[in-house]
């Protein structure tokens, strides 16, 4: 009898955990049977800016010179930018020099390129270089 009780407890728990797992996958949103663009696409029902940071890094990479200083930021968060965005660039732009989002100081100390997530980056020291579905690439005005 004890063995039957044990099996019943385990099978019930397994069915319950599988059911809540499927429910969670559904709650995280679709598409459900399509390979996502980034590893962050479905970690939450609303899209994380980090997913856009990954996509934008990939899109901007061919346009960036080797060794150029670059940062990634979401203009809507100014002046307290999310540090994880430029840190994400550290891994995705290995041929460039990805730097923190320090946007104050003499022009020559600013990053040569800014990847702006979602919104435009209206800074007179930068000019728009490329527009992507997820954001923008700016280059520092010489």
């Amino acid at each position, binding site marked *: 009898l*004890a063995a039957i*009780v*044990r*099996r019943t*407890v*385990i*099978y019930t*728990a*397994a069915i*319950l*955990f*599988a059911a*809540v*797992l*499927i429910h*969670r*996958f559904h709650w*995280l949103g679709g598409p*459900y049977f*399509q*390979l*996502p663009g*980034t*590893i*962050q*696409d*479905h*970690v939450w029902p609303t899209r994380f800016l*980090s997913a856009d*940071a*990954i996509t934008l890094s990939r899109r901007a990479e061919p346009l960036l010179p080797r060794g150029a200083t670059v940062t990634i930021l979401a203009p809507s968060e100014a002046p307290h930018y999310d*540090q*994880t965005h430029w*840190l*994400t660039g*550290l*891994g*995705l732009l*290995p041929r460039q020099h990805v730097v*923190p989002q320090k946007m104050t100081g003499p022009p020559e100390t600013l990053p040569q390129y800014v990847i702006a997530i979602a919104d435009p980056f209206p800074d007179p020291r930068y000019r728009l270089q490329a527009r992507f579905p997820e954001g923008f690439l700016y280059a520092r005005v010489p």
Partner: protein
Amino acid sequence: MTDVLGLLAWLLLPAIGIGVWRVSCVRPLPLTARLAIAMAAGSLLVALTMAAMSLLGIEWSRGKLLAVTILFIAAGATLVYRHREHVASVAVTAGPDRVAIAGIAVCLLLTFYGTITARESCGDLPFTWGPKAVRWVRAGGLDPGVLRTWPQLTVDYPPLHTLLLAFTNTVASRFPWWAAILAGPLFLVATLAVIRAFSGDDAGTLLAAATLAWTFALAYPAGCAEPPLLLFETIAICALTFLDDPRAQTFLAALGAACAVFTKLEGTTFAIAVVLTILLVQRNLRRAVLVAVPAAALFAAWMAFVFRNDLLYMYRGARLPIYWSALPVVIKTLGKVAAFQTWGLPWLVPLVLIALGNVRRAAVPLSIAALTLGATVYFYIHYPDPVWWIESSSPRVLLTPLLALVIAAIASWRKPAI
């Protein structure tokens, strides 16, 4: 192509560690367990080799790492081939429970689905683990210069997982992000293989599979260090719990503890919990020393590197004051996270099974579960306001005591050896 090569690099780990099959106490284990143990051994070998190359000033490259890899595989395979006499398997399964095995397969498929559709990706991979591995690869080795300028708290974090990521990056030429997260389910398969092979309990393994499948979805471990850490911990706990051969217990607990120490900060507290359990529950001083020595040696080597290069940061947390006033908040917040959105069922189910079974047979994993849970609380009371920290990290940290508890539930129903 990058991710295919990256995945192949992860899949090479069991082949790289195949030499461990030569160890007499590993040879009689079922094939699935031997593959999982070889995966752990391969992980440690790769990490130690890459670290040693850096210390010797040998720059990493695809050619050099593949040459070393081939050397390990050839040497390991030769060792195993030369000592291939038939050994009776220690498998204790009475006959497969097909329903449970089907259930395990469903849990694994769900985890694979969740990972491949980016529903379980670790948030720390794109901005911590991944970039650090990429920077090491660009620097050609485990470069203290990269760590000295590292903009995060994890400068002195144990290097095994980052080195494995750097290994896959070197093999694939670019960082294989998808392969990095798919390593999560791969290590989960190995973890379940160890539990099933050592316990011979398909229904118990189903409980572990279902519990981990669900808690993985909330803990987001894919791409982070928890999946390998859980494999290493499982090898140690299951060896001490289910194996009758004293040499196998000692060897595999030592391997698991050493790998854990080199993987995560929490791996050190796990190793201490294992050693204390061997002393207090098994009352075996000799085994405790033998298990502690390799882990302590790896810890000492890493700390020597950290001190020599002035990188001490996170380990310094042990010197922080304890905020006893934060204890109620820590317990309340941890309790909320530990409920895993299912009223704490991942904990309650194994506790019920232990209560219905034989508690004494579960003493070893229960002790490890209690000690690692206690260590988790101890960590968090070092901050006056730890709520954010607990909410962001504890879903993953709690997987260790939870898994130990599930293994205790399996052990409590283990039939005594005839």
